[in-house]
């Protein structure tokens, strides 16, 4: 279980949102509110950048994701960044000039007759910049996939369990408690070791570990909602349980779920990177940032660019979701005085 969300106990989670809000107006307000908070804006900008990279990678990347350049360019693996700085159209702005001299003095600039590699080459002679761009796809997708899967299943479990109540509810929640008692990373490692390495299994492991979080959140919402008068009214009118669940409970649960999910993506990305780091991540050649760090971690001191760039990308990725999630939480939490 990750630390960030922590519905501390069922009592506290149940206290959160009075159920009788009008959701649509709330959402619009929430969005506006979130992005009035500057840190959330920062997060959104970063996320936008990452999405842009992911979507347009094939256009932006000068080389292929798995293109080995040893034979074609004759460069050694782990070549340092080679940036063409003598381009004339760079405006004569002090900031850019300082950057240029910094890069030059550190040996990153190179003449225009040599092939340009903005971030250098990796251990197999592949262009790091291209792999960073392509890596955005995997990292974003994997994180979102892990959380989506857990969200769907966790919500389903929470809804059913909370609604059925009684012994079913008790047993299911005990099972969730058992899952939560295990440290996330270790459980994920065990799952991947059992199923074999690979990105799919890593994503599966991370999502299984997060299911209980969503189950718990939804279930406590169910508990608080179903005692309400309007639900009794619904029942009296003969509304089916399923409708009650989908039309009353679910909308009410969205708030904490959205916050949880956004923060959850951040944690998922970190956990996937950690799994890659211990060697249980995906395909060797796939451009996944965690994997890129894992392969080159012993070159941290001799070729720091190989660890630095993917490390910064993971950090930005996680930061973006954390900031947005925080912003959402602030905006949607009714206890905060506006």
């Amino acid at each position: 279980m990750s630390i960030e969300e922590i519905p501390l106990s069922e009592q506290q989670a149940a206290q959160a949102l009075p159920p009788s809000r009008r959701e649509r107006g709330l959402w619009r307000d929430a969005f506006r509110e979130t992005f009035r908070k500057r840190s959330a804006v920062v997060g959104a900008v970063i996320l936008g950048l990452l999405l842009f990279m992911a979507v347009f990678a094939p256009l932006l990347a000068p080389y292929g994701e798995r293109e080995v350049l040893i034979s074609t360019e004759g460069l050694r693996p782990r070549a340092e960044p080679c940036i063409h700085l003598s381009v004339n159209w760079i405006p004569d702005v002090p900031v850019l000039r300082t950057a240029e001299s910094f890069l030059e003095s550190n040996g990153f600039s190179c003449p225009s007759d040599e092939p340009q590699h903005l971030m250098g080459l990796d251990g197999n002679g592949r262009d790091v910049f291209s792999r960073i761009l392509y890596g955005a796809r995997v990292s974003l997708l994997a994180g979102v996939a892990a959380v989506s899967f857990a969200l769907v299943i966790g919500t389903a479990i929470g809804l059913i369990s909370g609604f059925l109540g009684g012994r079913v509810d008790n047993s299911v929640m005990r099972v969730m408690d058992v899952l939560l008692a295990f440290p996330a990373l270790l459980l994920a490692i065990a799952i991947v070791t059992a199923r074999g390495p690979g990105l799919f299994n890593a994503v599966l492991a991370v999502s299984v570990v997060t299911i209980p979080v969503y189950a718990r959140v939804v279930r406590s919402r169910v508990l608080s909602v179903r005692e309400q008068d309007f639900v009794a009214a619904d029942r009296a009118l003969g509304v089916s349980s399923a409708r009650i669940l989908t039309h009353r409970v679910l909308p009410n649960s969205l708030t904490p779920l959205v916050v949880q999910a956004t923060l959850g993506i951040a944690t998922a990305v970190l956990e996937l990177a950690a799994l890659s780091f211990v060697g249980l991540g995906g395909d060797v050649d796939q451009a996944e940032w965690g994997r890129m760090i894992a392969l080159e971690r012993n070159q941290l001191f001799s070729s720091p660019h190989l660890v630095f760039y993917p490390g910064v990308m993971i950090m930005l990725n996680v930061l973006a979701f954390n900031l947005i999630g925080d912003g959402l939480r602030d905006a949607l939490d009714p206890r905060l005085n506006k």
Partner: protein
Amino acid sequence: MRQPRFRWLAAFVSLGLIAAACGGDDDEAEDSDAEAEDGEFDALAFDEGGQCGTDGYAGNLAGIEAVDDLTVTFTLCEPDVAFPSKVAFSALGIFSEEQLEETGGAPIDNPIGTGPYQLEAWERGNQIVLNAYEDYWGDQAPIPTVVFRWSEESAQRLVELQSGDVQGIDNVGTEDFETVAGDDSLQLIEREPLNVFYLGFNVDKPPLDNQTLREAIGYAIDKDRLIENFYPEGSIAADQFLPPGIPQYEEGAEGYTYDPDRARDLLAEAGYPDGVDLGVLSYRATVRGYLPQPPQVASDIRDQLAQVGITVALDEQEEGAFIDNANAGNLGFYMLGWGADYPDATNFWDFHFGVGASPQFGTGFDDLHEVLSEAGSTTDEDERADLYAQANGMLMEHAQALPIAYGGSAVAFTSDVEGAHASPLSNERFAAMSLEGQDQLVWMQNGEPSGLYCADETDGEALRVCEQINESLLGYEVGGTEVEPALAEEYEPNDDLTEWTFTLRDGVTFHDGSTFDANDVVKSYQVQWDAADPLHVGRDGLFTYFEALFGGFLNPPPAPAG
């Protein structure tokens, strides 16, 4: 708890066996109480000559006898030219009879030896602390304390070295050679590449059962590209299975060269004019001297094969699972290697391609079996060279393994360590080093030993530690492979090299003060040799090296049916 009970049981059983043995059965070991009483020496002796060549015994050892308290004679079934090399190996380190008996044949955590260093403490997971033995028979070790630590990450080992917390490290990272060489406060010492990295095939698994296909793959690999880009200085492209440095290495052998056109032709000949999908290339991410960058090399091999139309997917397996699979013959196409244990061709050839070889290559080839058997028992060096050259040709033809590279590696020490060296057998000897102004040298290697009873260990990490503590009859020279006297001052074979007599050093004591004599030698060998001995226990009871060096155990457990 189960284990202590087991030990008591073993003790009672052993007493019972000894009592029964005194009944004078021909096949039973004839032994007597080994403790010297009143100056009299009750010699241990074991004679199993009758078993040579019989169905129940696959080994080459025929007898061990303590002729007197300082002389031991070994008798062999067949001549063995490499006998001294084998005897020098750490798995045959000498333990005292008493300790073997006291620990029930498993002095794993607390070995007592005759070596220049004794075990002070083993803090599992943290460190092993050795102190110089003051009553060592030879020159006392100049450095009073040696501490072993470990880390799998080469960058971490380097940082520790650079920060001065550690004075010596193993396996400098490929990219760090330059850094260390350029640093005046450090010394880089390269290790001769006494190993081989190869691509292996299980010839029973289609499509790899096609010999022409395997040959095609041989021509498709650009070894120079691999060496240049992924191996450190001192590494050499392989042209045969033995590395240079092993005496039977064939100069000018013809191996596979990089010839993609020929590869494509052979591929077509093999029935795959449009290319072929081989399935997976399996490997483990573990760094070894013969393979410092497994994922990168695997990736590049995959790319090279793609260029001639051979498709393969990478299958990175977890270390334990990988070894299991290799030993069980589950892998089809894989990357593996071998580092020399002792400097003789038999160490490389027999394990992989000899008669009792591991199933990793599938069904063996009879012509190779024959040549190797002969080469292992011939005494004429020229004849052996010839036979191994023939083996090279056969390996190239059958291509169940493609030697790719001899991997160089290096150790690094701080500049103030005198006598710092690297051993081609990974057998660095700390008693030969000195360090002014400090009483402690900290050495950081890749991993922690699993146990310190070297008879039952195979990992270099363990062997390096126990070699400081226990000595064998002979030893390897510091930093080299030449055999030199150790616990035995001299040795003498008979004319046909089937009988070897060793004269032991006088006045040698074990770390606990007890005297070293011929009975300790006999006992140390015998508990490994006789699988029915109650002290044939060890850590997991495999005694792998004994079996590899001498062919087999006495009274081996029955072979599996089928």
